């Protein structure tokens, strides 16, 4: 790729991780863990797409769940109405992505001109509106009750689905890494650091922000499609604020402005959710595990704005700086 020297070490780590993950289902014969990992991958995709907005472009959207929901619903509806086969499944992913892309284009065009406060509020309102539509349009969505559908037969095997999701994760990761390292991605980072200066350099920042929101929306729709398959059920809870909050927590705790960060966040949050709700039988306080994450999240925003991965990267680059030229990697978020 374009940065061979830097990437070689990284790539080796990624390759080792990938081999471990590929070997995992054959080594460990644990159904729960396989399902949990699948979940982690799906939310990792969602959190990465959210980080394109929050970490790379520096805009806070509270409406990310609507793209997730669009993906979930288009997959569920097409598999139920046409037939549960692989081509239909792939087609439904494409349909979901196109719909999400169109929607995010219009939402972005309307809202991204506004200041961050208004943007956050308006995305919240639009996703709320879409949620109401989904709840009222009962003939298609079955409202809050949702509906079950048959997944393609191949996915009956949890391990096959595990590999499918893992493949999606790797592909999305590679595409997004290429995206954020491209000149376009650099402009997005410039917008995050100082929008006014970027504009005075001659970039039409609105265009770039809309592109960023389209990319994020399309990827979120993919995550939604996969999530619908993993549950074989959809209802309107997939479009609620909770999904956006999950993505937000994962991104903030894992580390904004990196692609690995949201993945780490997804691992941390999903595992914690799994084990803390297990503990809840003995200690009822753990039923409200989200409190701990809320507090960690607040502390992270104040003290570690770069999250787990960002803080580690800063440490590493500082350590390296002692005997080498400074790395351009650790970028301070705008204060």
């Amino acid at each position, binding site marked *: 790729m374009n940065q061979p020297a830097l990437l070689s070490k990284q790539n080796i780590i990624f390759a080792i991780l990938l081999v471990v993950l590929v070997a995992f289902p054959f080594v460990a014969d644990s159904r729960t863990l396989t399902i949990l990992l699948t979940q982690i991958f799906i939310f990792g995709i969602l959190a990465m797409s959210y980080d394109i907005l*929050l970490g790379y472009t*520096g*805009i*806070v959207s*509270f409406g990310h769940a609507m793209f997730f929901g669009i993906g979930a619903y288009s997959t569920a509806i097409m598999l139920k109405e046409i037939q549960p086969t692989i081509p239909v499944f792939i087609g439904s992913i494409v349909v979901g992505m196109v719909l999400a892309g169109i929607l995010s284009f219009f939402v972005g065009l*309307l*809202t991204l*001109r*506004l*200041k*961050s*406060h*208004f943007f*956050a*509020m*308006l995305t*919240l*309102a*639009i996703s*709320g*509106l879409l949620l*109401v*539509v989904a709840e*009222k349009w009962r003939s298609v969505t079955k409202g809050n009750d949702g509906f079950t559908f048959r997944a393609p037969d191949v996915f009956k095997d949890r391990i096959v689905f595990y590999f499918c999701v893992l493949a999606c994760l790797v592909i999305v990761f590679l595409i997004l890494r290429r995206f954020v390292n491209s000149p376009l991605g650099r402009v997005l980072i410039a917008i995050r650091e100082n929008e006014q200066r970027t504009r005075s350099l001659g970039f039409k920042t609105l265009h770039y922000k809309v592109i960023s929101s389209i990319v994020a929306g399309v990827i979120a729709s993919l995550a939604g499609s996969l999530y619908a398959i993993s549950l074989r059920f959809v209802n309107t809870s997939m479009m609620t*604020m909770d999904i956006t*909050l999950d993505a*937000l927590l994962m991104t*903030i705790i894992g580390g904004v402005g990196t692609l690995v960060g949201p993945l780490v966040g997804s691992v941390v949050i999903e595992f914690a959710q799994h084990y803390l709700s297990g503990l809840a039988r003995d200690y009822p*306080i753990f039923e*409200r595990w*989200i*409190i701990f*994450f*809320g*507090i960690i*999240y*607040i502390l992270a*925003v*104040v003290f570690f*704005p770069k999250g787990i991965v960002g803080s580690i990267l800063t440490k590493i680059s500082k350590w390296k700086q002692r005997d080498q030229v400074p790395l351009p990697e650790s970028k301070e978020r*705008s*204060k």
Partner: protein
Amino acid sequence: MDLLISLVINGLATGMLIFLLAAGLTLIFGLMDVLNFAHGGLFVWGAYTGVVTYAYTESFLIGIVVSILTGIILGFIMEKLIITPVYGNHVQQILITLGFMLVLQEMIKVAFGPNAIPVTVPSYLAGSWEIGEVIVIKYRVFIIVVGFIIFGIFHYILTRTKIGLIVRAGVINKEMVQALGINIKRVFLFVFMTGASLAALGGMLMAPYSGSIYAEMGMEFAILGFIVVVIGGMGSFSGSLLAAILVGLAGSFMAYYVPYLSLAVNMILMAIVLIFRPQGLFSMIRREST
């Protein structure tokens, strides 16, 4: 005719409750440039502490006092711990106040249990009057009266007293106020605590009106509060009253005539305002939209 009157009363009562929430939001935003996404949390905490006290002491008045006190205390803690560290950074403000909202909402479930708590109207406010063919529910009138009294008091404070003068000047240009030797930080704290107590009071008044309280209602009402703030104009106190009444009336009429659109209409209203007049309908500050 009687239908029209009861719809108007309904809308006004809801509007007043939203106004109590939005008044704090709009002043905090206008003065401090902070959009408090945790405002709904204060609303719920006011409702829960007030209702629990009301259930213990069987006095609605003590419940109201306790809910206001809760609002003041929470407002103080929040301003000191949550708002001050991220002052001036919009993205962090949005993130941190939303996180605090999450914590407040979950703490409600820990402290008071996750189930909805039923609330009854105190006996002296229960029942209704019959005027001709119109049935007027007493409690709704009570809310409207309280809302107007509070508006009157704060309108007086804002326009006739020194502190009001400082707040209004701060909304328009806070650097200038600071340059004149006024400790704007203390004014911030005062406004924040006042806004928090208004939100808590709104929650408490809301409880008997809707009949039950639950942890998630904070976010639902906060969204309405945001809509009102946007429509009324950031920092405009009277604008938030007018917009709250507008939203309340639109909600009650739509809920009767076109129930499908009842929630959507406010969102659409806000979207239109934001796109064509981002500073709000009644705003007195001129601030560029980008």
